[in-house]
């Protein structure tokens, strides 16, 4: 990356981390509809996905991890933070791979990312808590797909409207 390109990128990443952090907070205020840990809308992943599609995977990883650490240290708690990190790493790897293939829509990539996030998170909780928690797997796969697709649609819309200010990568 050329030096003169760096400032807008830095500014955008900063804004995205801030936006993701706020969305995380808003989501922590929403009551859980299902009573199942891990089932949520994942709104905080909109900025991550947006950065993945405009700046590439390195930026997306930065936004995602910075957001999780900030949210974990302020309101989500340390154990939730570690589970979240596991989910984020798995979903980022798979979303980057799917995006590289190049033929899929953002919605599909995001839906798969949501599923991967929940699987990663469940795998991490399995290590800490034990196998019985696998009982949640089907619910978490469905909710991850639905939430991920929703996040994908919102991100597609956002990118469309921000086209003049963010370059597509």
């Amino acid at each position, binding site marked *: 990356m050329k030096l003169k390109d760096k400032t807008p990128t830095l500014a955008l990443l900063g804004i995205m981390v801030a936006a993701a952090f706020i969305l995380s907070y808003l989501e922590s205020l929403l009551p859980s509809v299902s009573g199942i840990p891990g089932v949520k809308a994942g709104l905080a992943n909109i900025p991550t996905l947006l950065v993945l599609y405009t700046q590439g995977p390195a930026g997306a990883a930065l936004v995602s991890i910075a957001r999780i650490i900030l949210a974990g240290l302020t309101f989500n708690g340390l154990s939730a933070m570690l589970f979240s990190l596991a989910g984020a790493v798995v979903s980022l790897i798979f979303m980057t791979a799917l995006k590289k293939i190049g033929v899929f829509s953002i919605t599909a990539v995001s839906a798969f990312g949501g599923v991967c996030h929940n699987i990663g998170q469940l795998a991490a909780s399995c290590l800490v*808590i*034990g196998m019985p928690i696998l009982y949640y797997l089907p619910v978490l796969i469905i909710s991850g797909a639905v939430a991920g697709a929703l996040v994908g649609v919102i991100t597609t819309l956002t990118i469309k409207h921000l086209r003049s200010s963010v370059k597509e990568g």
Partner: protein
Amino acid sequence: MVYFKKQDLIVYVLMLVLLVFSFFVWNRALGDTGDYAVISINGHEEMRLPLSTDGEKTIEGFAGLTCTVLIKDGAATVTEADCPDKLCVDHSPISRSGESIVCLPARITVTVSGSEEPVTDGVSR
């Protein structure tokens, strides 16, 4: 930019396969009516309560957070907890083998287990 492409079907089919696979995992994790509520903290079994005897027990888990487990009519529920989210309290009663209630903040799991006798007597490790 579109919300759906024909190729997306590959991804959705892949997720469907994952879902079908997960039901096998779920089926294995879930059996017939169980006999014990096994309470574990941080993955270590702490105690076994027979589902046939009604009773109540308060367990202290990670970071001093507590959960109160009630056994009634052959099913276990968490009636009280001082964790912040109270997801464990909202969970419906469990009675089938393999079902579980998890209190993530307290790292407590309540799992219904089948009739097989525990390898150790629940006191020795």
